[in-house]
């Protein structure tokens, strides 16, 4: 039985956002859609991925042409319900090796709009689980998706693709991690309610920072922002008193004068027994005295510094992509190997069964007639000997068959074996 992995889909490169939105699968209808897809006779297994940058249908099917046509119709229905025509030109189709490679690249975030962004893996896992729960996943997609998760993990740990922060907020978090051991135990003070400040604060919170203080010239605004972050609002006149409690200080005000001078920070550090502090200056003009950075145990990065690091990192990613592609290549080969061996398993089993049957039949025949006189021990010896013979005979064909799956003409061997031994499925 032929089984092919096929992917039909569209992404941020092939389709504009309006089209992607129309085709997207809402989580409320996902289960129903999966079942509908699986009820098509051409389709054996399926997973639907639907993020804001891509919609992809991954299936296992016996006949590629029929399956592709069916999936296209299925997607067109989805889209037609929303009233839009001409979907076909946005769609791409991958099958066999190309499909496996495509999924691995997507999971490893090599196909993302921002290469290396980490969210995609979580999204794929989510959609895999949904398909699994809907009963749409079988042996092949199960293995394919689990392999894709470990490809993503390998790419993340073995290349710098994901470790390099490329946005201001992620560089800020990355720097914080280089200074502090556990962000979970750290406190952030956010001075000012600027948009950039809130963004960085949110990123820090997502990375584990638990405690947050917010201050602003208008106290109401501080209360409002603190509410969003479940932090503590602090009156602007009082915030200097609380500074010594903060490990990270984010400044994002439009204050014309500098808020924190070197001397003040020196004093705070003394009170903190020199526990390190990280200052992030997003203000325009600058909120913190640049000389703060000269102090031991104080680190000051302003927005230009953060952007500079982000730019450098973006440059560094290019080389990492190449490494990641190599990993994907290795894993594709390994997966195809497994898929190939799946094909031979029934043949090997059938061959073994056939020979075993012959052995049993012939042995019984002889033991019942010409060898009737044999003692129990002799019978056992005969049994062992014939078994060993079968194993010895089978050893080299099976080894060859297994090795063959690494090469191209495995199908011919499997075929030949079936014909020679009359192994057609009953």
């Amino acid at each position, binding site marked *: 039985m032929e089984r092919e992995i096929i992917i039909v889909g569209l992404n941020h490169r092939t389709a504009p956002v309006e089209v992607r939105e129309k085709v997207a699968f809402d989580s409320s209808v996902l289960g129903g859609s999966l079942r509908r897809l699986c009820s098509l006779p051409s389709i054996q297994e399926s997973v639907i991925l639907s993020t804001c940058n891509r919609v992809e249908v991954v299936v296992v099917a016996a006949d590629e042409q029929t399956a592709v046509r069916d999936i296209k119709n299925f997607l067109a229905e989805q889209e037609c319900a929303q009233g839009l025509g001409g979907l076909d030109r946005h769609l791409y189709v991958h099958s066999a090796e190309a499909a496996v490679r495509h999924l691995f690249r997507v999971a490893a975030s090599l196909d993302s709009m921002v290469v290396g962004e980490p969210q995609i893996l979580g999204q794929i896992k989510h959609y895999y689980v949904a398909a699994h729960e809907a009963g749409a996943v079988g042996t092949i997609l199960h293995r394919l998706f689990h392999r894709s998760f470990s490809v993503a993990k390998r790419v993340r740990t*073995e290349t*710098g693709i994901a470790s390099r922060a490329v946005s201001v907020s992620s560089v800020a978090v990355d720097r914080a991690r*280089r200074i*502090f051991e556990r962000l979970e135990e750290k406190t952030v003070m956010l001075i000012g309610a600027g948009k950039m400040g809130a963004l960085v604060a949110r990123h820090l919170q997502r990375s584990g920072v638990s405690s947050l203080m917010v201050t602003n010239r208008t106290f109401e605004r501080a209360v409002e922002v603190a509410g969003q972050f479940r932090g503590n609002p602090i009156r602007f006149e009082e915030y200097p008193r609380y500074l010594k409690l903060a490990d990270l200080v984010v400044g994002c005000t439009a204050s014309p004068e500098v808020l924190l001078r070197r001397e003040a920070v020196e004093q705070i550090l003394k009170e903190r*027994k*020199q526990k390190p502090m990280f200052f992030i200056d997003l203000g325009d003009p600058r909120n913190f005295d640049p000389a703060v950075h000269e102090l031991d145990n104080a*680190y000051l990065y302003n927005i230009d510094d953060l952007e*500079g690091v982000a730019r450098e990192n973006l440059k*560094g990613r290019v080389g990492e992509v190449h490494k990641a592609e190599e990993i994907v290549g290795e894993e594709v080969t390994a997966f195809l190997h497994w898929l190939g061996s799946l094909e031979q398993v029934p043949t090997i089993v059938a061959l073994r069964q056939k020979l075993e049957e012959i052995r049993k039949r012939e042995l019984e025949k002889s033991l019942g007639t010409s060898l009737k006189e044999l003692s129990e021990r002799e019978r056992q010896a005969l049994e062992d000997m014939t078994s060993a013979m079968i194993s010895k005979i089978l050893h080299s064909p099976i080894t060859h068959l297994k090795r063959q799956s690494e090469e191209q003409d495995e199908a011919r061997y499997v075929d030949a074996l079936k014909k020679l031994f009359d192994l057609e499925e009953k």
Partner: protein
Amino acid sequence: MEITLLKVTAVVYLLATASFIVYVVLLKEFFARLSPVILLAGFIIHTSALGVHFVQTGYPAIMQFREALSFYTWLMVGIYLLVQLRYRLAVLGCFIGPLAFIMSLAAFAFAAGREEIPPALKTYWLPLHVTLAFLGNAVFALAFGVSLMYLLQEYQLKSKKVPKLYERFPSLETLDRLNYLFLVWGFPLMTLGIVTGSMWAGIQWGKYWSWDPRQISSAITWVLYGTLLQGRIAGGWRGKKAALLTIIGFAVVLGYFLSGGALFPSRHAGRFE
């Protein structure tokens, strides 16, 4: 037999070093796991070499300078492996690996020759003294390693650069905490080392303290580390300052240890004429 084992040890330490370097350059997680295992293999062979010596001579391998150096390396690697078990600091191995290799190589540079142990030296104060002093010292070697890492990490944060080589360095806080941890363990061991040393000196030389260069250098280091420890506990000394002091202290110890008393002849040192 013992020498062969030591040679194998040196080769395995070299392999571990190479593996650690591959890890830092390529950042392949696989090597972060592999390298300590290679080092452990070296450690086991090293242990058996020391065991063979003990069985053959009935005395720990600390009588000659080369033996002492080898014993010291053994302790250092052992402590690192314990730390690795708890803190997963493969990067630290990049400092310990090469150090272990160079020191086991250096041990061969010094003349072998089975000297008869003077009967007067056959007291158990000596192995006790050497073990304690070396243990303290080996812990300081690790403190030295993390301090060096601290300075590198600190430098790159201050310079606002991101060299790829430091990608897997632990955070400043982690390194600083380890510096403190090693200090807290190393200092009492060193103190005990000095005390047992004077006890032994009292027995051998008739005087507990004789302003021998070796004693003076230990005293300097002891005061240095003592001050640092007290500063850390009471005065909030940490970070760069602590790292620098640790490095200086270790340089004093190592400098004297490796010069083997050549610059300032001592009754202590490697040979026991």
